[in-house]
Structure formats: C-alpha cells, structure tokens
C-alpha cells in the first residue's frame, strides 16, 4: 500500500473515532447480548438433544464404517471427488494439496488482497471468490451429510452375486474383519479414503499373485503406497482375498 493511502486510512479512522462512543458500555452491551443468546442456544441443544452413549471401542472387530464430525464432511467428500483410475494422485490431491493450499491461502490472504478499498461492492473479485468458496463448503458438507457411507456397520455392505463364489465369500469376510473398510469403499459403503474405491477392482486386470504381493508389501507394487502391509494371513487366506478382490466388478456386483 502506498504511503498516501496509509495516511488516508489513519486520518479516516481518527475521524470515525472522533464522533465515536466509548467501548464500555456500548460495545460491551451488544457483545453480552449476543454471547448470552448463543450460550442459551447451546444449553438448549444440550437439554433437548441429549448426548448419547455409543458402543465401546473394539479394535478387533473393525466391521464398523466410520463417520467424522460434520465439520470434517467437506474433507471426506473431497476424497470422493478426486477419486480416479490412478489410486495415488487423487488421494494426494484431496488429502494434501487442496486442504493445505486452502489453509495457506486463508492465512496469507491479507498479503494477497492489499488494496485499501473496503466497500463490498467495490471489491467484486474477493467477494465473489468468498461466496463461491462458501457455497462449495456448504455443498460438500451437505453431500457428506447425505452420503450413504454414513454411520452404518460394514455388514450392511451387500455384494450381489457373491454367494456363488465360496472362496470370494471367505475373502469378503476377511475384508470386513480386518479394517479394510476404514480406508476403502465398496458399493458406497466404507470410508472414501485414503484408499481407492474397490467396487470395480476386478476390472483392473490384476493377477492373483499381484494382489497377494500387494497385500504383503504394498510399496513394492505401488510406489509410495501408504497402505499398511498385511503379513499375518495364511496362504489360504491370501488366496481368498485375491479372488474376492479380482472378482469385484467382474464376477459379482
């Protein structure tokens, strides 16, 4: 900002204070009214919508599909938007690049928009940007609220046609019991990330050996993979999981 503009601001602000009023009691009174009303609303909510008690944690049975608090819905939805063929890039976009970019932009905003103009209708670019961002956040939150991957247990996950493949059914059991659904989604049930949607995994044409190797040591098959290695299954179980995964989107579903 130019020196003359800074001086103009100072002169203007001094003028606004000259015929101003004291902080106490005027501002304090307004503050107290709004803050008390808000506290009242919070207490009313606490009384009307009583807190509930859920089920105690059981890390062994992970057939539970998680759902974050509503203020993180937009991040969750972001994961779905960037879903694509390639598993890694979209996850990095949604978990890292977009949120961090937004956060940094938010923090340094005053150093980007430096003009002295404060009247709303004279700052069309920043005001329109803000409105677009607000609508996007509202939309993503709303989508998250309606998402089918809500607080449902993973055993509500249905895969039509799987009953004809006993080996795949056993693999499906393992999938539910080992927390895969807390990173993956099938037919809209499960977490939208960080792992890719597996509904059409079979269509990728992976071999069973590939799937087994990937489960044992993901980074060897997908460089940079952040999926944990699953090393404790028996050979039989690895085979069942592989058949289940490669059948998704082809043999059943």
């Amino acid at each position, binding site marked *: 900002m130019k020196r003359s503009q800074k001086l103009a601001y100072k002169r203007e602000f001094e003028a606004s204070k000259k015929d101003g009023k004291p902080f106490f009691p005027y501002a304090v009174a307004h*503050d107290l009214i709004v803050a008390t009303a808000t506290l009242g609303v919070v207490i009313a909510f606490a009384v009307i919508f009583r807190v509930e008690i859920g089920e105690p944690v059981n890390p062994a049975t992970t057939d539970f599909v998680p759902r974050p608090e509503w203020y993180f819905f937009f991040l969750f939805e972001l994961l779905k938007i960037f879903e694509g063929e390639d598993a890694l890039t979209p996850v990095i976009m949604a978990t890292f690049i977009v949120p961090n970019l937004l956060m940094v932009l938010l923090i340094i905003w005053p150093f980007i928009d430096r003009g*002295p103009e404060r009247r709303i209708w004279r700052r069309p670019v920043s005001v329109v940007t803000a409105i677009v961002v607000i609508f996007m956040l509202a939309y993503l939150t709303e989508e998250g609220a309606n998402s089918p991957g809500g607080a449902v247990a993973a055993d509500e996950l249905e895969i039509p046609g799987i009953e004809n493949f006993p080996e795949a059914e056993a693999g499906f059991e393992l999938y539910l019991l080992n927390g895969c659904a807390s990173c993956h989604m099938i037919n809209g049930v499960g977490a939208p990330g960080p792992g890719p949607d597996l509904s059409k995994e079979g269509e990728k044409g992976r071999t069973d050996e590939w799937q087994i190797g990937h489960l044992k040591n993901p980074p060897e098959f997908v460089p940079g993979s952040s999926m944990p290695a699953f090393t404790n299954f028996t050979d039989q179980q690895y085979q069942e999981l592989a058949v289940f995964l490669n059948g998704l989107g082809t043999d059943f579903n």
Partner: protein
Amino acid sequence: MSTEATPQDQEDRTARAAKDIGPTGPITKATDMTLEYVDERTKVVPDVKWMMFRKIPKETSWFQTLGFTALVIFAMQAVTGIVLAMFYKPDPATAFNSIEVITDEVTWGWLVRGMHKWGASAMVIVVFLHMGRVFFFGSYKYPRELTWVTGALLLVLTMFMALTGYLLIWDQKAYWATVVAVNITASAPILGPYVADILRAGPEFGPNTLSRFYSLHMLVIPGAIATLIGIHLYLIARLGISEPPYSKRLMKARREEEDARRRAAREQLPHGRKPVPAPGTTPQREPVTADGGGSS
C-alpha cells in the same frame, strides 16, 4: 491514550480529591479507595480505564459481536472441559466407562457433557461466521493483517480441538473416524507418515494414542489457542475496531471527497465552470480519470 500513570495523573488525582467537597456516597468512596490501592501497587488502573473507555466508531454493527461470542464459547468449553476432566479417565480400559458414568450417574453430568459437545459445534460455526464478517467488512486490510493471521491460526486450531476431542469418547464411531483421519494424514507425501506416527504415538493405534490425544486436547492446543487469543485481542485493542465499510459517516465522507474532486476537476477545465466548449475549440486537457486524485 496514555497508558502510563504520569506524575501529572497523580497530581490531578490529589487535586481532585482535595477539591471534591460534594457529598460522596459510601460506595463511590469505597470504589475510589480500592482503585487507588490497586493502582498504587499495580499501575494498571489507567490501562484498564483506557481499555474500557477508549472510543470506538459510532456505527458498529451487530456482526462485530461474533468475535466476543467465540471468546465466550471458548471460555465455556474450558469450564465444562475442566469439569469433565474431573471424572474422565484417559485409559483405553476405563475411558468409555467413565464417559458412561459422566452421562448417567454424575449430577448434571449429561448437561456438562452435552454443553461441551454442542459447544464444539457452536464454536466452529461462530468462529467461521466471525471470519466471514471480517472478510466482507474488509477488516483484514491495513493495518490489521496480523490480526487476521492470528485469527486464521485460531480457526485451524479450533478444528484440531474438534478432531482430538472426538477420540476421547472412545466409542466405535469416534475410534474409527479417528483411525481414518490419521490414515488420511499418513497418506500425505513427505511429512504425512511422520505426523501420523506422532499422532498415534507409534506405528499403530494403541493405548498411548489415547494419552497423546488427551494431552493434545487438554494442554497443547488449548494453551496455543489461549496464547493466540491474547495476541489477537491485544492487536484489536491497540488498533481499534474497524468501522463498517457501509457506515453513514464513511459514505458521507467518501461522497464529499468525490464531489470535491469533481469540483476541482471542473475548475481546471479551460472554460471554468462552463465545460461546454465554444464551437470549433477543443479542451486542452485530458479528462480527469477516477484515480487521478487518489483518496488523499
């Protein structure tokens, strides 16, 4: 705007005390004496008086109460949080049970827990609305850039409070949601895996994870928030609260400025106040553009 008690102040006060012969009620007298006592020992009274009675612009808006509301909700979260901490047991074996006890057995426990839970949502909403008003008023502009930066950090920390607090309930929903949140963190490149290890207190979710979230939620983040709020409020008091950009006074001043500029431009036309040129002649000067005069 003096912030220090000068010898002058001291003299004024004694002079006033000596001259004051009107009837003084016992309450006024007691107040004066107390203030005098405190001021002699702390030198803080003039600062507080300045703080309370400093002038703010006349036409402040109701939207400018949201920051204070966020502050009050933070205070409520601190108080209800302290009460909850008196009964909560941060151990995977007992955490869930202690939440049950708070909800079902402790007197008013359900209310305190409910206020803390709904307060978390309210705080996110109010802080967001407060940020919106600061944005649309253009209040982040010179000289308040750093106030905005501390505020933006406060928003991020508020979200982290929400994230870390959710796990403490230790029920299935919270546990698995946090597992996913940490997994998502782990999938970020470069620092992701390390941050995830720090959050989990190791490569796996375990008993130490709960202690870690407990300490973040109870000590680290609230401490950071309290410090930043302190800086935020200091800056606001020092710089003064901004005037809404649509206030009548400001609009009038802007209008007068504009008029003056137009008048000056007209004076400079070759034909004085009659900018209609005689046939055949052209004005010698370029038309004056809007930015010609500047706002000075």
